[in-house]
Structure formats: structure tokens, C-alpha cells
């Protein structure tokens, strides 16, 4: 776990990542709070807080007496959300750093193409 951010946010993000990568498919059951706690070696209350965050956002839903499931359509919603964040978290710092180093926009575009083909 990374020290700078609350663990429950990191847990929520890990579950989101698993949904994005497809390892947690829509309409399948996700591990229980206690299983998350044991796996990531964190307090069960903290794991529960992370899972609840996704329930409130509608990414997961509760089936009474059975457990948590991935909501249908949540992958597409996460992709849309993450694309917005991509601009702030990756694109803007990249462009800022490139400007600092005197890399022109054309050069930057070339570098991205080369990176992709490498």
C-alpha cells in the first residue's frame, strides 16, 4: 500500500483496475471484504470502506445473503471516468515536462508513436 493516500481509496482503485482489465467480469461475484482484508493484509473495516465506495458509485451491487457483484455496464462507465482523469493525471504533466525540456509538440507526437511501435 502506498503511504500517501487512504487505503480504502487504493482498495477501490484496485477493484476498478480488475474490472477494467476484465479479470473481474460484469455480473460476477467479487471477493468478500474479509477476503480482501486477508489478501491485502489490511484492516477489514478499511477494506469494507473501499468496497462500499464502489457500491455507492453503482459499480458493485449487493445480492442479499450472497455477496457483492460487478454491475452490468460498469466497465464502460469506468473507462469513461478514467479517460477524464487521463487528461489531468498523465497528459498535462507530460506536456508540461516536455515544454520544460524544450520538446516541441511535433517531437512529442513522434516520440509517442515510436514508443508504441517499440
Amino acid at each position, binding site marked *: 500500500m502506498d503511504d500517501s493516500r487512504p487505503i480504502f481509496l487504493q482498495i477501490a482503485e484496485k477493484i476498478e483496475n480488475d474490472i477494467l482489465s476484465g479479470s473481474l467480469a460484469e455480473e460476477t461475484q467479487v471477493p468478500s471484504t*474479509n477476503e480482501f482484508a486477508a489478501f491485502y493484509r*489490511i484492516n477489514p473495516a478499511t477494506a469494507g470502506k473501499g468496497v462500499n465506495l464502489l457500491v455507492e458509485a453503482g459499480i458493485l451491487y449487493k445480492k442479499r445473503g450472497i455477496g457483492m457483484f460487478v454491475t452490468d455496464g460498469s466497465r464502460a462507465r469506468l473507462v469513461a471516468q478514467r479517460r477524464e482523469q487521463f487528461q489531468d493525471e498523465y497528459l498535462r504533466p507530460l506536456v508540461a515536462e516536455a515544454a520544460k525540456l524544450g520538446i516541441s509538440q511535433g517531437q512529442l507526437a513522434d516520440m509517442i508513436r515510436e514508443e508504441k511501435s517499440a
Partner: protein
Amino acid sequence: MTAVIEVNNLTKRFGKLTAVDDVSFTVEENTIHGLLGRNGAGKTTLMQLLTGQDFATSGSIRVFGESPVENARVLGNVCFIKESQKYPEDFTATHVFRSAPWFFPDWDADYARRLIADFRLPVGRRIKKLSRGQLSSIGVIVGLASRAPLTFFDEPYLGLDAVARQIFYDRLLEDYSEHPRTVILSTHLIDEVSDLLETELVIDEGRVIIDADAESVRGSATTVAGKRSDVDAFAVGREVLHRDAIGGIATVTVARLSEMERAAAIRNGLELSPVSLQQLIVQKTQAPRQEFEQSA
């Protein structure tokens, strides 16, 4: 939420020494609570008071709503694993585990047997022939298998190796999930346990310096590094927990920053890094170093 422990203005003096100094806090039911601090901070004294093994000089203690002193109703629900528990030398671990159910009504002998196998504890060997780590594992097994509604672990793992400590953490989390109870974990190995804790109480020289849930302590401080002039300009008007400088470079540890403040610091070429709970406690509990004040 119900409070299992309520402490108000608790003070304990030994002659001239004030070991616990006007301390007040509560512990909620079914949480894993960290009791952290330096050697001699007053952790063990506090736990002895909470378990009725010593008398308070002043102030009040309520455990399960009652005073713990000579109170069988309270103490029957409490398990206190001490750092240096002594056992009769000619005993074996088997004797310890056989007598445990007399004190702990919820004792689970099957679970104890599984833990003995996990820790590879030679139960037939006499206590005086056991290593320091093996003695510690007896305490850890008693603490877990007793399933007491309120369990104190005071530095439970003196001499336990890294593998055994990991087994302890894993078993604690598992068993806590299945049998929720209140656990007070006192330790110096702060980084190892910080993810397990729900709330944290840090004491120093008998006083409470942090009493908060673990998530709010996490990220409550940031280290800012960069050119000395930039760093000092950034630190103006902020609570500085720690400052270090070498040549033209300085680092300061400051209290929580907002997203905007973080972004502004990064734009100004400063580097930000998180402060772990252990570093935070080190910085909050060490004597301020004079030379930094002068060079500032």
C-alpha cells in the same frame, strides 16, 4: 458504536515520575487499535491500569462500563499478553495451553492446536529450554486462541522472526474477521502493523499526541524537498514537524496539504513525498534538534 474502554483524565505517578499524564480516550468495540510510542512512553503502564493490575493516581477508567480493578466480570473478558510473561521454568507449553481455558471462557483448543503447528512450537519442551521467540509465540497463541472480547498484545513478538510475525498478522486478521473483538496492539514495529490498524493512539512521555483513525493519520503529513529558499518560502505560516538542510537543499515535513497546495508546490519545482506512520511518530516524538533552528 459502543465504547469498550473509556478513560478520563487518567494519571499515574510513581514517586516523582509521571508515567501517565492526564490521558483521556475511548476505544470502540470490535476495532483493532494501535497503542504506539517510544520505550518508556507509558504504554505498558497504561495497559496495566486498563487491566486492573495497578491503581490509578487519579482519573477514571471504565472497561465494559465498569472499573476493572478486582472486577471479575470485566477481567473474565480481558486477555493481556505481556512482553515478558514469566512461566514456571519446569512447565511446558502444554501446561500453559491446558490451563488457559480456566481463565478464558471462549478458549478454542482446536484453533490453539492449529496455531501451534503454524508456529512450529515444541509444546513438550520445558519452558527454560525454549528460545526467546518460542516463548513469544506461546503468548501470541494464548492471545489469539483465548478469543477474549478485549485482547491486549504488549510487544507480543520479542525474538519472533519475520516469518512468525507475518503468521501472527495473518492469523490475527483472519480470526478477527470471523470472531470480531477489540484488540489493542502495542508495538515499536509501526510500519509492519500500520495497515492492520483501524485507530491509532500514540503516546509520548505519558501524554496522548495522536488519537485518530488510521486513515486520517495516513497522508496527514508530507515531506517537501527542494532548493532551500523555495522550501523555506513554502514552509512560511505552516506547522513544520521537521526540517533538515544540507548545502542549498532543504526538506521540511509539514501538516496535511490540500490538492491545490500540492499542485502549487509541484509547479514551484518542489518534490513531495509521503510520510509513513513510523516516520511521523519519529518526527513527533524526538527532541527538537537545536542546530536546525539556528540554520533556519
